[in-house]
């Protein structure tokens, strides 16, 4: 019979080296595959093939037409809402936003929820202005950061040839 006299409780040292090797490998893998991406959102555009820009006869309100005019460098020269000139400059999309609100009455108005906005942009116009115009028609952010929808349906006017005005 063995007697554990002076208990030699030697600590069993686990082999750390292989684990650390693998762990470093993992660390390097995840560091290299890291791609910092910004949150992206999208604006939906529905363009059915069959019915190009035919308005419903029972629609009370006509479509809102937003025309974006470009200068020779592709920057925004003028925004027109229907026949009205909203000008250009940094505030133009805020003006467009409030004009759209005036047209629809109030957000979520059942009478105007089927209204559509037609964006008619010059060929050269930089895409960022088109996105800004779409955004101004789609809605705005309220104080809590939620989106208040104005017009859901956005469509494009038929594309124009590159050099035509």
């Amino acid at each position, binding site marked *: 019979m063995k007697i554990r006299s002076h208990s030699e409780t030697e600590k069993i040292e686990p082999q*750390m080296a292989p684990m650390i090797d693998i762990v470093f490998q993992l660390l390097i893998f*995840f560091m290299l595959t890291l791609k910092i991406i910004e949150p992206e959102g*999208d604006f939906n555009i529905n363009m059915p093939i069959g019915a190009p820009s035919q308005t419903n006869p029972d629609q009370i309100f006509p479509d809102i037409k937003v025309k974006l005019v470009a200068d020779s460098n592709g920057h925004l020269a003028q925004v027109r809402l229907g026949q009205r000139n909203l000008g250009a400059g940094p505030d133009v999309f805020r003006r467009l936003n409030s004009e759209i609100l005036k047209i629809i009455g109030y957000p979520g108005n059942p009478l105007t929820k089927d209204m559509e906005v037609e964006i008619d942009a010059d060929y050269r116009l*930089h895409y960022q202005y088109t996105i800004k115009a779409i955004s101004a028609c789609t809605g705005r952010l309220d104080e809590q950061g939620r989106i208040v929808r104005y017009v859901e349906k956005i469509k494009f006017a038929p594309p124009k040839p590159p050099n035509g005005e």
Partner: protein
Amino acid sequence: MKFQSEKPQLAEVDMTPMIDIVFQLIAFFMVITNFEQTAADERVKLPRDVLAKPPEVKLERELVVNVGFLRDSSGKKLDPEPLVFWAGENIRVGDMGAKFQQERRIAEAKKQDPKDITVVIRADAEVPTGAVQELMRLAQEAKFEKFALKAAQASL
């Protein structure tokens, strides 16, 4: 005079804190990595907008089209014409029709309706709008109907 009778002891380094930190780092990088957005091309500098919130429901079927410019390291355009970055190739916008037709055939072979597929357009902020419209027209010819325009979320 001292004799070195004892064996030279190996200095044991305490590994525990290092392993702790390394595990923390691994966990951090694992959480932050996402392998989903592999279709996004970093050469495309998206326009920014405050309304561009990430969608709550992910689109079921999507076809991502990246449109941008070839730029040098300082961001100057090498070619004034926008190009579509498509599966490692750079294709002119006008030549995308064949690719869309090919995608439609692939979708039909997989018994999917092209009408259910959203064409997600990721266009650079400086691409002419006409090029984006041209792209949409070509996609429409291939029976795609739903489109989504991507924008990066801007802070207020």
